[in-house]
């Protein structure tokens, strides 16, 4: 019973690392247009998705965070020209490695979200929250 209650009563602790030029402004726009989404994700601002080293994924998951989302500009829109492309490769390789080691793929997510896609940002946060809530708490390192 405890496990089941804890599952649906479980409030996942999520971290979103956003690039300040596109995704962060998209999230702000979601705010100005008063869209409503889940409050579980705490947002961290970095200059570019290229700054999001895949090691943050690992460090996040080992300091009992249930899910991490990287969000950057669409290919071609990057303020720093090719930052998001390098970030994409590093992210994909590290996610495949973590998945191979047994980490649930829903805990590690990446998204492209531009400064004008406020609706998309709200949907991303909601779907990530639901997915991580489904996979349950991250007690691999308790």
């Amino acid at each position, binding site marked *: 019973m405890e496990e089941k209650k804890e599952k649906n009563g479980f409030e996942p602790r999520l971290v979103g690392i956003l690039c300040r030029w596109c995704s962060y402004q998209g999230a702000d726009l979601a705010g100005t247009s008063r869209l409503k989404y889940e409050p579980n994700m705490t947002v961290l601002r970095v200059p570019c998705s290229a700054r999001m080293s895949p090691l943050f994924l*690992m460090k996040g998951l080992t300091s009992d965070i249930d899910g991490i989302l990287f969000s950057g500009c669409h290919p071609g829109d990057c303020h720093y020209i090719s930052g998001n492309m390098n970030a994409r490769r590093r992210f994909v390789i590290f996610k495949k*490695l973590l998945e191979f080691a047994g980490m649930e793929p829903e805990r590690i997510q990446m998204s492209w979200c531009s400064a004008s896609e406020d609706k998309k940002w709200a949907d991303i946060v909601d779907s990530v929250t639901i997915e991580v809530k489904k996979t349950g708490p991250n007690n*691999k390192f308790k």
Partner: protein
Amino acid sequence: MKELIDKAKELLKEKKVETVIGYREIRGCVVPAYVDSPCDADCLIFDKRCVYNLANYLKWFKNKNVALVLKGCDAKSINVWLQEFQIKRENIFIIGVECYGVMNEKSADAGLSDKCGHCEAHVPNIYDAVIKHQGDKKESVQGEPFKDIQEFEKLPHDERWDFWKKQFEKCIKCYACREICPMCYCKECIVERNIPQWIMSSPSVKGNFEWNMVRAFHLAGRCVECGECERACPVNIPLMKLNKKLIKEMKELFDYSAGQKEDVKSAIDDFYPEKDIKIDDKMIR
């Protein structure tokens, strides 16, 4: 192995190199050999038991000119070193050796190690001289290289996690896998950094998981699959399983395998133009 010894003697006589690093046999097992003078070059041998990747010793011979006896898989490490500006090509003389498989020390029946099962680098792709292979040229069984990886991927993720958790629990953080790997040449490894403390230095489940993940990630697109890390691990953690997974991904996604050419940008730093990327869109929302 007369050809190998003559080549070593010739190099040392003409003072082209200061030392020749090869293999030697003492008390029944094969150890690395450092030959400085032509007269004691007779101890050099090459056979099934020469498993070490001698390219690793370049860490301590960085700007001396040295000759190396290298198998096919080991020579690929030189390509990665050149790709990352660690040595100058003219400083080293590569004595390539045609090899048809080396022994797997850890298996009871001392059969060929599984990297040789699908080896396609019998003759090194970078060398200054080649020593022909004496024994039978048994063509390696061209099995599907990543079959065990694909099977392991099919397991559910918590089963995979239990497998790796049990393996990482054994890790004693002796870093033999780092010191034996030619790709780990950093002056100060990321493990020794405490501002910020990327990796928990104590051998806990968290610390070992972080260490093995970062080590495997740093080999993405760089590991030449010489299998030394798994051989050196005293507690038998299947490290090559992690590396092979990344080799499979780099091949499938970016069509890149380590150590082929030395003037190309490593795949992890490169990127396709917008459209024709093989990463399926499910990975990124």
